């Protein structure tokens, strides 16, 4: 028998978090978690960042996790604390972000009694998490905490909830270090099968029109995977495109990069996907925003799909060669097999393929026209281009987060990412209100870096309360609002698909964002016209502390190129001049989101 435990459950919890290397917790206190806050008060190793809403805590933890590759940690109370966190949890689930969320719970003897601030947290979060736990016995506590971190960060990462009844936190509990043998049932496969790699190489060596299509899995795998991706693409000379989630895994400045693909992807990326005869997908999941109409998606290509999650393969698109494994391990194996294989690739065909791609590139699908006359209205794309160019002049490390909507797509198109983990956006769930709390999490992890939330005026209001968090911790996040007074993407769809009936997409009575910034102890700037844009960007970047830059942009601008929902990759709308084609959208397309 071991000695009777000395520590309370809350102290054991903190000891386990320390053993997992946790440095910071994003949280919000409440009755059920008071013993944990008391234990936090008694130590200095783990820092607590007080958010202003539990959804913000999860997004902040996501920003922290995505910018560092570590597990983000959240602490919220029972009942509304837990339910408020659910949006963030689903966001992390959809985007495969490692988060451990500690939720308070009423004491074990009250569970099921409809006690004050009781919610069935494990029931509510079961489909919102990769896994969840309810700790019912003190002797399970430490094991569950360590297991939760293992599950959150390994395999396809994701959010894990640990529901902690208050009595378990108060009563004494034993501590146990992480189990050395690993988990009895959870064993994600990371090493690809050599046979699958060989089949992939045979297809890629014979390809005449190949394409590499990468996603967030490359970023989640780590920096080595991004290095190996660059090596593989340069060694093969293949064109490379990326999902929204994968931006930065392959440098945007490399001529082999075709830009993002999908609904608002580039013309060259989508036409190359459509015309390819061999596709290598790595760490991407053939999302509907990427594929467009499934039965017209890359119809002539032999498809190879590498993913750490077997359920991502053959889910939407049947593939010829499935490879289950970690993106980095897959790339290392592909590189070795490519070099070892004596067959020579068809260089001549590849050169012809590049000539085709270059012709598509020459369309300059991201082109827009900015009027530079004094007083002219600012085009949102130009605002992002200038933000990119001016930040490049500074030579500082720049992290970008976004909210969700047109500004997000323009940021993906016009801001260029050279490294992984510098681009944080809500891809799968499309959560408005993601960007500001995520920027806070990034800034906590990288105090010296320049962290910018590219926002829309509608999205930013969804978690605007986090300005108070930024002010409290003196986090110099820069909020760059492209203010078109509309929920721009809603307005765009209403224009293109619903006869220009702008139901509820115009926001009347917007706040004065400059005064709003000032009321949150931050600095506010506003640019009304093109002649003020650069000055406001420079002032924003030069200012200490948090800043809101409110950029009035063209309210009628639409985000192009665009594949209307239900259309094929080769059926893109390139610009406003051709958008009449959207009037011919099919009924099956209209039901899609």
């Amino acid at each position, binding site marked *: 028998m071991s000695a009777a435990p000395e520590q309370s459950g809350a102290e054991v919890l903190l000891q386990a978090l320390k053993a997992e290397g946790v440095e910071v917790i994003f949280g919000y206190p409440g009755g059920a978690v008071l013993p944990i806050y008391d234990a936090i008060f008694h130590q200095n190793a783990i820092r607590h960042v007080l958010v202003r809403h539990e959804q913000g805590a999860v997004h902040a933890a996501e920003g922290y996790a995505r910018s560092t590759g570590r597990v983000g940690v959240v602490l919220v109370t029972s009942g509304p604390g837990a339910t408020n966190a659910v949006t963030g949890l689903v966001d992390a689930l959809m985007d495969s972000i490692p988060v451990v969320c500690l939720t308070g719970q009423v004491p074990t003897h009250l569970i099921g009694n409809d006690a004050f601030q009781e919610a069935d947290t494990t029931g509510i979060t079961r*489909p919102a998490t990769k*896994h969840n736990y309810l700790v019912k016995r003190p002797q399970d506590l430490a094991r569950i905490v360590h297991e939760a971190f293992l599950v959150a960060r390994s395999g396809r990462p994701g959010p894990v909830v640990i529901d902690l009844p208050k009595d378990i936190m108060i009563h004494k509990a034993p501590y146990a270090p992480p189990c050395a043998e690993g988990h009895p*049932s959870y064993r994600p496969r990371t090493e690809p099968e050599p046979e699958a790699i060989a089949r992939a190489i045979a297809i890629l060596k014979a390809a005449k029109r190949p394409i590499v299509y990468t996603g967030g899995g490359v970023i989640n795998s780590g920096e080595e995977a991004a290095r190996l991706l660059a090596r593989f693409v340069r060694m093969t000379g293949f064109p490379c495109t990326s999902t929204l989630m994968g931006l930065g895994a392959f440098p945007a400045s490399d001529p082999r990069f075709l830009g993002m693909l999908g609904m608002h992807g580039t013309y060259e990326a989508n036409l190359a996907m459509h015309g390819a005869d061999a596709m290598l997908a790595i760490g991407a999941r053939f999302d509907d925003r990427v594929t467009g109409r499934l039965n017209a998606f890359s119809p002539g290509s032999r498809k190879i799909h590498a993913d750490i*999650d077997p359920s991502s393969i*053959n889910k939407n698109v049947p593939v010829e060669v499935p490879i289950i494994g970690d993106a980095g391990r897959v790339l290392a194996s592909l590189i070795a097999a490519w070099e070892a294989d004596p067959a020579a690739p068809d260089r001549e065909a590849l050169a012809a393929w590049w000539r085709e791609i270059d012709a598509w590139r020459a369309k300059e699908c991201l082109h827009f026209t900015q009027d530079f006359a004094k007083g002219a209205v600012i085009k949102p794309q130009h605002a992002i281009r200038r933000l990119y160019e001016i930040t490049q002049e500074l030579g500082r490390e720049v992290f970008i987060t976004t909210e969700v909507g047109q500004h997000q797509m323009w940021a993906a198109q016009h801001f260029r990412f050279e490294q992984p983990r510098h681009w944080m956006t809500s891809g799968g769930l499309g959560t408005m209100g993601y960007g500001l709390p995520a920027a806070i999490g990034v800034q906590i992890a990288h105090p010296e870096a320049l962290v910018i939330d590219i926002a829309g005026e509608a999205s930013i209001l969804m978690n605007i309360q986090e300005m108070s968090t930024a002010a409290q911790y003196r986090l110099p996040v820069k909020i760059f609002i492209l203010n078109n007074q509309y929920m721009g993407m809603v307005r765009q769809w209403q224009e293109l698909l619903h006869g220009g009936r702008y139901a509820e997409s115009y926001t009347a009575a917007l706040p004065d964002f400059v005064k709003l910034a000032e009321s949150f102890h931050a600095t506010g700037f506003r640019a009304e016209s093109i002649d003020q844009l650069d000055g406001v960007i420079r002032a924003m970047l030069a200012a200490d502390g948090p800043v809101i830059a409110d950029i009035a942009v063209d309210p009628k601008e639409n985000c192009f190129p665009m594949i209307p929902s239900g259309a094929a990759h080769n059926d893109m709308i390139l610009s406003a001049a051709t958008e009449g084609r959207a009037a011919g959208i099919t009924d099956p397309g209209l039901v899609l989101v």
Partner: protein
Amino acid sequence: MQGNEGLRSATISVLVENEPGILARVVGLFSGRGYNIDSLTVAPVDETGRQSRINIVTSGTEMVIEQIKAQLGRLVPVYRLADLTREGPHIAREMALIKVIGSGEKRAEALRIAEAFRARVIDATTENFIFELTGATDKLDAFLALMRPLGLAEVSRTGVAAIARGTRTI
């Protein structure tokens, strides 16, 4: 995607950690993703009661069934699973308790058919029988169809338990 492809039935056995919520996880996965459950059984199967076996009979296109297996396989408390329908010969059995109420010739006929099906009479009054019948699902279905005009009053079925033939294990 699932246009012209044919539907097939699949009997999938899943060995899971016997933890609270595991059944909810499995059932939630099926309802959340719109998969069918034709039958589901679950019980602990090891001496310590730590592991349970869930047998699920489902149907879908080949692509959907592969997706179901992949989704089940990534649940944290799942040790192993087997698609018994696809992985070779297997035996599937279920048990039913069947109450038949009637008298006279119908009652005698019910008993004769029960004997032909090797159903056991486990309870009887002058007005009813309760039969216990074990067998493959189609055998139970056939028996119930015959009992229907003979006074079939109530049925309780266990759902399918299944296992691979020969030395193969899950």
